[in-house]
């Protein structure tokens, strides 16, 4: 366990300055990823930890057509929010499908966006080949045992999965990330927030060093939308997804007017399945449409022997949740 300086920030500007000016500094919020990687696995070792948990970035407020969620709102708090329950039920489903109550009482929404992969090779510093830990060192996962890994946005450089359930719904809903950096505030659509690994898997998102997520804004679903989140996993609770799908539909006379689709358990980043949405939009809400959408959703999958099953499972997961949400029985 490496040594670090502990600093407790009292306002946002002070926190941003404390991390931005020190290349080896990191933020500490809920800690459920950061401390795990620092204290237990020894994967990251910042010299300075800036505790932001006392900053006034907690709680959610509803405005016209959206909910603005402070970055330090916990997963349990957001799941219990009346607006989320009423207008974003798939967000609540995804939140409650993740982790345990204890972890959800600690983990923050901003932290959920920035959670690090659970790839075993990334989390084991004795494994030399990990492009995410050290660019150009290779990828042990592609030739090793890999099961809980990504197949979309994946390549020979990296197949590490972004394991969030919440973010799968947020990318489908066009959430916007609000940040504060030394150059001021900016807003970034979540669909443009993450970077496909390519040959730089160490670069996971568009944030500058020290840029702090202050809030996540989520547009509310129209009142006539139907939605759902389905998570398929090895045990029925407290487990990461093998595959998952978030779906929101607006139907009229058996025709899909509007569709949003996010996929989990399969992407190196939370995956927005725009190809599937195009298939669904304007098409009749029946099984053939759903199957065609699933084909489009998993197009371009890059697999290794251990992850090949996820192509078919991912399709079936999407078809099933589309059937459920559309009210079309199998």
């Amino acid at each position, binding site marked *: *366990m490496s*040594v*670090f*300086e*502990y600093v*407790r920030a009292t306002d946002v500007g002070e926190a941003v300055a404390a991390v931005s000016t020190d290349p080896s500094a990191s933020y*500490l919020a809920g*800690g*459920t990823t950061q*401390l*795990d990687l620092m*204290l*237990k696995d020894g994967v990251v070792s910042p010299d300075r*930890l800036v*505790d932001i*948990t006392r900053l006034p970035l907690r709680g959610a407020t509803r405005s016209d057509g959206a909910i603005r969620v402070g970055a330090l709102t916990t997963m*349990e708090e957001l799941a219990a929010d009346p607006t989320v329950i009423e207008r974003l039920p798939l967000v609540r489903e995804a939140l409650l499908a993740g*982790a*345990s*109550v*204890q*972890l959800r*009482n*600690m983990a923050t929404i901003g932290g959920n966006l920035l959670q690090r992969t659970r790839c075993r090779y990334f989390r084991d510093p004795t494994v030399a080949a990990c492009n995410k830990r050290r660019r150009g060192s290779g990828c042990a996962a592609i030739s090793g045992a890999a099961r809980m890994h990504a197949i979309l946005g994946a390549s020979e450089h990296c197949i590490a999965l972004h394991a969030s359930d919440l973010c799968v719904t947020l990318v489908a809903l066009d959430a916007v990330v609000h940040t504060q950096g030394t150059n001021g505030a900016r807003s970034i659509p979540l669909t443009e927030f993450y970077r496909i690994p390519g040959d730089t898997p160490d670069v996971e998102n568009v944030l500058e060093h020290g840029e702090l997520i202050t809030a996540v804004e989520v547009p509310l679903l129209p009142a006539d939308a139907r939605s759902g989140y389905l998570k398929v996993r090895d045990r029925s*609770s*407290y487990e990461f997804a093998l595959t998952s799908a978030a779906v929101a539909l607006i139907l009229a006379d058996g025709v899909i007017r509007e569709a949003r689709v996010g996929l989990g358990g399969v992407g190196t980043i939370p995956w927005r399945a725009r190809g599937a949405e195009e298939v669904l939009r304007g098409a009749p809400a029946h099984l053939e449409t759903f199957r065609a959408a699933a084909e489009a959703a998993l197009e371009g999958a890059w697999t290794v022997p251990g992850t090949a099953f996820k192509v078919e499972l991912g399709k079936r997961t999407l078809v099933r949740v589309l059937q459920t949400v559309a009210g079309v029985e199998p």
Partner: protein
Amino acid sequence: MSATIPEVAVTLGVNGVDHQLRLDPRVTLLDALRDAVGLTGAKKGCDQGACGACTVLLDGKRVVSCLMLAAQGDGRQVTTIEGLSQGGDLHPLQEAFIRHDAFQCGYCTSGQILSAVSLLAEGRAGSDEEIREFMSGNLCRCGAYPNIVAAIREVAEAGGSR
């Protein structure tokens, strides 16, 4: 280890008593409770936030104390298994766990009971299915789950904890 790392002053409220501590910033809440405060009821199982043996209540909400720095608990109130009994009377959940034989080796038990205290306060013990789902962050390697569920159900049906 470096002697130059400044210690952090932490005031930790534990079971209603304030403890003024000076700690290495790397010390987790779990280690502070066990080593600095001297309460060993919270157990170190996986030490990675996966097993729930270290569950305590922080300002009334359940958390895993192994994934939190003690410094982050400054000024906050922690409840451990040692703080549940009142005047020598066990908490109803403690009594129910004994009555239902809801443990074997006992290592996960304090975490199970604190999680269950929280479960009842959250109103999530309405059915066996609900109890299982919202207790899933507490693993029991001995497999006492059926008896744990029975113990919690009994207390829930009797009107919950005090």
